[in-house]
């Protein structure tokens, strides 16, 4: 067992009045861990650094036409379409439970207008049991040509500002990989007041069913996740780490301790384990235990010693 002397604690919102201090840097990603209750029988949820719940919108959403998932080489595509029961139900049904947990819960919000982002942030802010907000900006901006907020620095910054102004909670903005210049978007989000940045969301892709000769997914396009996207995610974390000074949470294909260590070395202060949990419900805990064991074996006493190790010297 790893010695307790290793410091794994990380602070993800150093400039926020509440802060977001986690006992370890291993979180579970939105949409892959439900509301924190479902995996309770299969792993010890209370050892996680934090839990990020399924994306919530202002109103209930039915989600997309099935099929919604398809397996791909070392990964999967999904087109769930943000099926959820709306913010009011989420706060009523889950927040009281979360308030009693030792593991912080971060609420992931999604919206198609600045107004809705602000509304969600406001509602979350006034409910106990929530440690922070993660803002999914990969949704289309219906007030402006339906391009995703994440697709350019201006709209990404606008969504960030809408949330930051409506809450005192720590705000993490989750970036999309489906963009040209990720560093410019990250810089705009930092400038707009985000406490931290998480990346990446899924990579836009598709599959064709050769029997029907049609796209396999009901929504035609879907988001790719899993080990297949890890190199893309790692590259983006490394680029963003050189463009911002706020903490970065690395996401994308993390399934083993070595994957997580790569992200930390590329400049992430913490990581999220996503769809790997589907295959191995203990994936996040295996990452955590393996990270501790590795730090111990390397004689490293504080996880911060490896954060950014692979970045070019400044």
């Amino acid at each position, binding site marked *: 067992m790893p010695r307790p002397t290793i410091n794994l604690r990380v602070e993800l919102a150093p400039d926020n009045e509440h802060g977001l201090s986690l006992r370890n840097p291993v979180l579970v990603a939105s*949409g*892959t*861990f*439900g509301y924190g209750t*479902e*995996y309770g*029988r*299969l792993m010890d949820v209370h050892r996680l650094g934090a839990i990020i719940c*399924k994306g919530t919108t202002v109103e209930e959403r*039915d*989600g997309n036409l*099935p*099929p*919604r*998932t*398809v*397996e*791909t*080489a*070392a*990964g*999967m595509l*999904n087109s*769930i379409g943000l*099926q959820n029961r709306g913010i009011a139900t989420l706060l009523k049904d889950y927040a009281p439970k979360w308030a009693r947990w030792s593991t912080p819960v971060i609420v992931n919000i999604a919206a198609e207008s600045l107004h809705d982002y602000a509304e969600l942030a406001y509602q979350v802010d006034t409910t106990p049991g929530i440690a922070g907000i993660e803002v999914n900006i990969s949704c289309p901006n219906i007030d402006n040509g339906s391009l995703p907020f994440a697709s350019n620095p201006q709209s990404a910054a606008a969504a960030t500002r809408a949330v930051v102004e409506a809450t005192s909670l720590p705000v993490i903005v989750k970036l999309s990989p489906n963009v040209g210049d990720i560093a410019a978007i990250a810089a705009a989000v930092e400038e707009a007041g985000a406490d931290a940045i998480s990346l990446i969301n899924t990579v836009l892709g598709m599959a064709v069913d050769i029997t029907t000769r049609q796209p396999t997914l009901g929504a035609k396009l879907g988001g790719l996740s*899993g*080990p297949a996207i890890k190199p893309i995610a790692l590259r983006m974390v490394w680029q963003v780490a050189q463009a911002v000074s706020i903490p970065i949470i690395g996401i994308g294909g993390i*399934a083993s301790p070595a994957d997580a260590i790569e992200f930390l070395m590329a400049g992430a202060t913490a990581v999220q384990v996503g*769809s*790997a*949990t*589907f*295959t191995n*419900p*203990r994936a996040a805990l295996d990452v955590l235990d393996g990270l501790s064991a590795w730090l111990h074996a390397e004689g490293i006493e504080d996880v911060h010693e490896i954060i950014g190790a692979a970045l070019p010297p400044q």
Partner: protein
Amino acid sequence: MGLHQTEDNLQQFTATITNHREVAHNLVWVGLRAPAAALREARAGQFVFVRCGDPASFDPYLRRPFSLAAFDVDGESAALLVRVSGRGSRWLTERVEGEQLDMIGPLGNGYRLDERSRHLLAIVGGERQPHLAPLLPLLKSAAARELSVTLLIEAEREAYLPPASLLPPEVEYQTFFREAGDSAIAHIKPLLGWADQVVAAGPDDFLAALKKVAGAVYPRPDIQASVERPMACAVGVCLGCAVENERVGYLRACREGPVFDLWKMVL
């Protein structure tokens, strides 16, 4: 949602393959020894989520769902009935006796046998091999309770048919082959009046055809049907396994299903 849901007794466990035999073309019976605690509360129609590949590899990425084709609630034996259709099912059927499988379960909501039922009609279809597995434990307990049971089963051709030896001897087994231009559904009408309860399993188009034929019968019989959907998580978090319900929108095949009230399903 006001829907019936089983208490969560799911666990992750290791099962050991105890026997292994091809019972029909591309249809393999995989006998298992599993921890008693994992089977104690299992119910007919529930399934397990199996890692079908080298545990050190993430390709294939997802686990595969398989119905519990047999299980012993007071013991350690269970079985899967696997249709070989792709890389995961092939990997599974290539394992040999003594090898271990990593699985999560039991999952989902099973069939419910009404206390008052005396006549049970089971109807099973499939693309090639029929989806018999989820119904096997139900037919076994129905026969044990001395219900009179009729099973109509449809396959592409005889070589794909699960042998009658998998069934309790009391079950009346009627087979139909699409190759010969026949279908199980063409023969259900006279039996719908006889049955107190109807249970079904098969692909969506098969269930849709069943719904159409049975819907023309008065009074409409109670029909519970088991569906198959691609599953990423099988524990209710990904919302990928959506099945449309005419009143409440999308339900999850892995949680509220895989057995649903056929009359409420939009197929």
